[in-house]
């Protein structure tokens, strides 16, 4: 088992004939991902790395099945592409687009919530269950990072993912599933919303979250731990601990979030909930060993 995708997940790729779409589709296939078809309007009949291409998701679904959609689509077309996948009955979607307009993020998230779908992204490298399947931008060639194992990883930051996950591997562990929540202020799926899947996954022993300054996603993880929705060991690293107070969003940001958002606050909430918080990436491995009682 794993979280979000595994060897059996059938994936269709929207924007498959583009430069990024075709390049990463090849790698997804190479990593074992079952890609059933691709979509680019006007390119039906072509194929990309053996993957047949259709004009639309609906037309692809007449010939093939798909459980998940991988979107290599520019930010301003992302909403349309997500809705097209949802309309096709697909309930797992990953979008790597960086720069999706905020109001469209809200619409996408609302649409996904209302039909029980999970849309991961934007501004992410995607998701990977090492050794099984990948949707997104993960290189198979960095073996010291994407090693199969029993630690779940969730991350807000693409650049920190390699850094911190390398420390997980250095600590003697590997990764069960890695979910790139993404770096946008309104990620389409939030940390806490993925926790039940990690909790249920028998192949995940503990979870590492890679957080950042701002927002309330880390606090929500602490709440889920306090509420016993998630009871496995959890180690967190949160960037931006010494950052000066950023630009203020008027008063509304502070009022709306009730004072969440500072790294100190996140640290405190997570610690109170029983998580171990690493002050630097190199402590993530040792803290995992501590949490899992490994000497």
């Amino acid at each position, binding site marked *: 088992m794993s979280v979000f995708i595994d060897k059996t997940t059938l994936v269709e790729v929207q924007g498959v004939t583009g430069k990024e779409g075709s390049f990463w589709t090849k790698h997804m296939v190479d990593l074992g991902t079952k890609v059933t078809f691709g979509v680019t309007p006007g390119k039906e009949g072509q194929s990309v790395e053996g993957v047949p291409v259709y004009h639309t998701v609906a037309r692809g679904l007449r010939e093939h099945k798909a459980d998940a959609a991988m979107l290599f689509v520019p930010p301003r077309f992302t909403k349309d592409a997500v809705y097209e996948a949802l309309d096709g009955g697909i309930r797992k979607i990953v979008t790597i687009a960086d720069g999706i307009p905020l109001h469209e993020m809200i*619409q996408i998230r609302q649409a996904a919530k209302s039909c029980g779908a999970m849309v991961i992204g934007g501004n992410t490298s995607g998701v990977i269950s090492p050794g099984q399947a990948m949707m997104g931008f993960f290189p198979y060639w960095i073996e010291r990072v994407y090693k199969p194992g029993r630690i779940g990883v969730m991350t807000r930051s693409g650049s*920190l993912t390699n850094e911190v996950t390398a420390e997980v591997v250095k600590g003697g562990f590997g990764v069960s599933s890695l979910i790139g929540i993404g770096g946008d202020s309104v990620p389409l799926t939030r940390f806490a919303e993925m926790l039940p899947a990690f909790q249920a996954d028998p192949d995940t022993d503990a979870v590492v979250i890679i957080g*950042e300054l701002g927002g309330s996603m880390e606090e929500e993880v602490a709440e889920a731990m306090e509420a016993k929705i998630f009871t496995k060991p959890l180690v967190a690293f949160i960037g931006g601990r010494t950052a000066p107070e950023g630009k203020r969003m008027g*008063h509304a940001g502070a009022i709306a979030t*009730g004072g969440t958002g500072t790294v100190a606050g996140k640290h405190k909430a997570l610690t109170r909930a029983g998580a171990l918080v690493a002050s630097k*990436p190199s402590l993530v491995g040792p803290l995992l060993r501590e949490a899992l009682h490994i000497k």
Partner: protein
Amino acid sequence: MKLFEFQAKELFQAVGIPTPKGYVLESADDIGTAIEKTGLPCIVKAQVLTGGRGKAGLIRKADTRAQLESHVQDLFAPTRKIKRLLIEEAIDIDREIYLSLTVDPVKAKLIFLACAEGGVDIEELAAKHPEKIITRSVDIDQGLMDYQITNLLFDLGIVGDIAKQARSVISGLYKTFRAHDAELAEINPLFITKQGALVAGDGKFIIDDNSLTRQPKFQLAREYFDSCIEFEAATEGIPYLQFDGDIGLLCAGAGLTTTVYDLINDAGGKVANYLEFGGANYKRAMKAMELCLKNNLKVILVVTFGTIARADVMAQGLVEAIQALKPTVPIVPCIRGTNEEEATRILKEAGLEPLFDTEEAVLKAVAIAAGRSK
């Protein structure tokens, strides 16, 4: 993109939200026109993007023309770098209300926040008496509905003739928020005048940066930035923040850059600038180095761990930038990820000493800056 107060108020006026009679003064020569427009007494408000203007003395009252002239002269002093003053009629205030619209990322809705007691102390009030903050979520596809306005008004205690005006203010705020891809629209205070009218006393408006391409009216300009270098970086699309230390950062990705910043502070170093040349900028080492070198540096620290952003391309770019710009300070490179063997080769060939551990690289750079190493 955060707008200036006068811009926010222009957006308000366009949707029928009343604002005080005002005049945007760009030169002391225009004081006469300003007084003609606003009368006396009037309020002088420096148009800067930082908060807490009242407490910083950037909002002042003038009862006479002489007083106004003196305020204007003082606020336009070159050291202050203030470009514009908003001169407004003084309002006869009965009550101050707080009203804003922002995004609720958890619920995936827009959310109105309101409070019957507005003004500069709203955050303190919200912390002490959260029950006084009235909230109302709006589904963006359904749009703002009448009953939601009705709830806000009754919970604010606004009834009678003012309720009618307030309905129009609330729906106007929603309309301009949606039309301009806002992440925040705030009126604080929203005055109720002694004459029983509603007037937007101040206005904050932030446009989502990801939506600027479809908001052609609002483009990056020098005035939105504290320094030329930050403006230049922004026009180049390179995330850049100015600090006052001596360690220049050339890093990739917000999370990693921020973490390097933390590690430098932990080690007792001081950062000169925050700069990302990852993501779409990974081929732009030259421009990144150029920006970085505008600071007075003791060392340049390069940290990347890239996937799409190939290590060899970044290393090559770095080497070319060094050859072209000839920085006089040491460079500590820690470039990892896709094709890092090739990157290592390129760096070594150029006489650099590549590192592979972020924390080790940080300690080395801090030591150099402190003169303990080189």
